[in-house]
């Protein structure tokens, strides 16, 4: 957690133990803290406070958007094949349709149009703002335009969980009916998040009960979590411009350094057109030819470098990336996928260390047939 969020959490968790829906003074104080947090988040996203519904995180927000839309309106859901599993699984399990990614990692507008033309029964379209594996930023206004043209009745949802750190969402918020965000991707507490529901939209809730969050999400609100989440949003937004500029330089140094050290092995992901402009500053995603990510992660972990490949299953094993597959990355290249994330706490020394450790580990594995 970033210090601003941690301090806010400690302060609020000591002060606001009361249920904010109660009527006594302690409850009213808690209610005020919760609504202050809501105001702050609304300002950062570019929506009204009444449109912010607190959830337990991004997965709940995504599930609520897709399943709530289907439950309320019927029909089918459509999403890109590169979505987070919190969107992909609700869409696929309900018999929905997916469309592909382009080699640069962004969602394919023509593919979206083609899927929407297959049926006139689409009730919700979900396209993430920033891909969590590759960091590719989707052309949201263009994709929203496609939906308005080919499925004007459909709700539009974006999973913006990965975006808040890097992008100002205020410019795109008006295009979307539903936006998912989460606290832990910006240094807030794990277990905090929100679904933004625009324009008085009503969907069948996932959780029924005491009518909290205006009946949209039952359960006693987590006041301290919301306060810390809001503090993380505030700190993120206040520093975003300078953070992005600084981290982008570090990220490019990291990728360029890896390419220089391992010219035969490194394939820079989503840079199909030679540009990294559409990749958010904090993600360095590469594939290493002839190396297995699982073995590489083991060696990096032993050297204190915490990286990831694609996603882990419930047993903790690495699973092949559905994102890279959808981009058309060949299977034998995708098994060597490596995602290095940078954030506000990343330093020049981290990059130097990564450039010392990663090429040595890759060289070792290459000598042993890839690991």
């Amino acid at each position: 957690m970033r210090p601003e969020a941690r301090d806010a959490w400690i302060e609020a968790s000591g002060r606001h133990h009361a249920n904010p829906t109660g009527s006594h003074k302690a409850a009213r104080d808690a209610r005020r803290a919760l609504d202050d947090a809501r105001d702050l988040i609304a300002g950062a996203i570019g929506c009204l406070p009444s449109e912010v519904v607190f959830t337990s995180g991004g997965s709940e927000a995504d599930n609520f958007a897709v399943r709530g839309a289907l439950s309320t309106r019927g029909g089918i859901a459509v999403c890109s094949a590169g979505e987070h599993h919190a969107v992909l699984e609700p869409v696929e399990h309900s018999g929905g349709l997916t469309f592909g990614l382009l080699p640069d990692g962004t969602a394919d507008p023509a593919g979206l149009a083609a899927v929407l033309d297959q049926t006139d029964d689409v009730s919700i379209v979900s396209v993430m703002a920033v891909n969590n594996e590759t960091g590719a930023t989707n052309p949201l206004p263009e994709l929203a335009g496609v939906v308005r043209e080919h499925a004007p009745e459909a709700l539009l949802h974006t999973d913006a969980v990965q975006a808040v750190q890097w992008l100002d969402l205020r410019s795109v918020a008006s295009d979307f009916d539903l936006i998912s965000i989460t606290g832990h991707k910006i240094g807030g507490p794990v277990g905090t998040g929100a679904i933004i529901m625009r324009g008085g939209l009503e969907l069948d809730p996932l959780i029924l009960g005491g009518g909290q969050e205006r009946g949209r999400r039952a359960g006693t609100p987590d006041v301290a979590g919301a306060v810390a989440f809001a503090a993380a949003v505030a700190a993120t937004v206040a520093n975003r411009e300078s953070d992005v500029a600084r981290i982008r330089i570090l990220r490019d140094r990291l990728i360029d350094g890896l390419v220089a050290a391992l010219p035969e092995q490194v394939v820079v992901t989503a840079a199909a057109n030679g540009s990294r402009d559409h990749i958010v500053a904090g993600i360095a995603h590469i594939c290493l030819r002839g190396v297995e990510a699982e073995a590489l992660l083991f060696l990096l972990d032993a050297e204190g470098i915490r990286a990831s490949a694609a996603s882990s299953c419930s047993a903790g094993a690495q699973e092949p990336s559905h994102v890279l597959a959808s981009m058309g990355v060949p299977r034998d290249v995708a098994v060597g996928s490596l995602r290095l994330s940078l954030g506000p706490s990343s330093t020049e020394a981290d990059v130097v260390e990564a450039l010392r450790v990663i090429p040595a580990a890759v060289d070792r594995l290459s000598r042993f047939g890839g690991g």
Partner: protein
Amino acid sequence: MATGPVMVAMSGGVDSSVAAALLLDAGHDVVAVTMKLWGGESDTGCCAVSDVDDARRVADQLGIEHHVFNFGEDFERDVVRPYAADHARGLTPNPCIECNRHLKFDRLLNRAEALGFDRMATGHHARIVDTPVGPRLARGADPAKDQSYVLHVIDPAVLARLILPVGAMTKADVRAVAVDLGLRTASKPESQDVCFITNQHGREAFLGDRIPLRAGRVVDTDGIDVGSVNAIELVTIGQRKGLGLAGGTDPRYVIDIDPDEAVVTVGPREALAGEVTKLESWSWTGEPVTAAVSVQCSAHGVPASGLVDAEAMSVRWTEPHRLIAPGQSVVAYIDDVVVGGGIAGR
């Protein structure tokens, strides 16, 4: 005794839990690994999430690192698909042996080496003994739990890098150590069956999804139709039940399977024995042995004396021996030491 780091393959069972504990106790630098092999349904075995959890929690308790390696694609390619293909050819394969051959003692061992581990350990009940020609695999100390049969495929060159810490112990002793250490796996039941076949759906459903199952005729030794089977691919030599035979006769057993014609031949108990077993493959662990050796044909089978002729690809039994289903592994021992192995042919 400590040398370089040891990777211990932990399945989540009691044997590998104790193996890890013993290695630690001996002063080794130990890292635990569980292989994720099968993504489908499983009753038990190495693949269920609960077994990975057990392995991780035992590692936590012992204070060692635990990692999970996903070898699912290798397992599918090298174990599951050949298992189905062998059944389609009328063979009776042993997938656990193929898993040992391709996954544990090849894929995992190579990864261990790539990651800088001098040696690998498993919780198998078998021993590695020094002989004048180098290390050799030998039976485990507990005759009832001996796993040398399913491990015979380990290349002798690999044995020098392998540690089998519980091979010299009885199962009761292994459990006693686990109880002493308070390991959560101390009283865990053993996994017996093929990990990717569930009790609920069974072998027929599993194979039916992967290969065409063909009905077959059942005939006696005179070629007279006496019964039928739904799936010739599921019949094995020595089988007595599920053949659609009328009662009232002496027991009859499957003595031959012709997968091409989809015909199963049954005969009396006497016809279930033969003097020669053909081999589809054979390899000696060292020099060929020309004298009679002790030959075992199933995981817990009783060994019998026989002469292996690797030129003629056959085992000539000293006394008539029960027929061996093609596809089953045949392992030769002198005293307790594995000297060769192969697969029975038709």
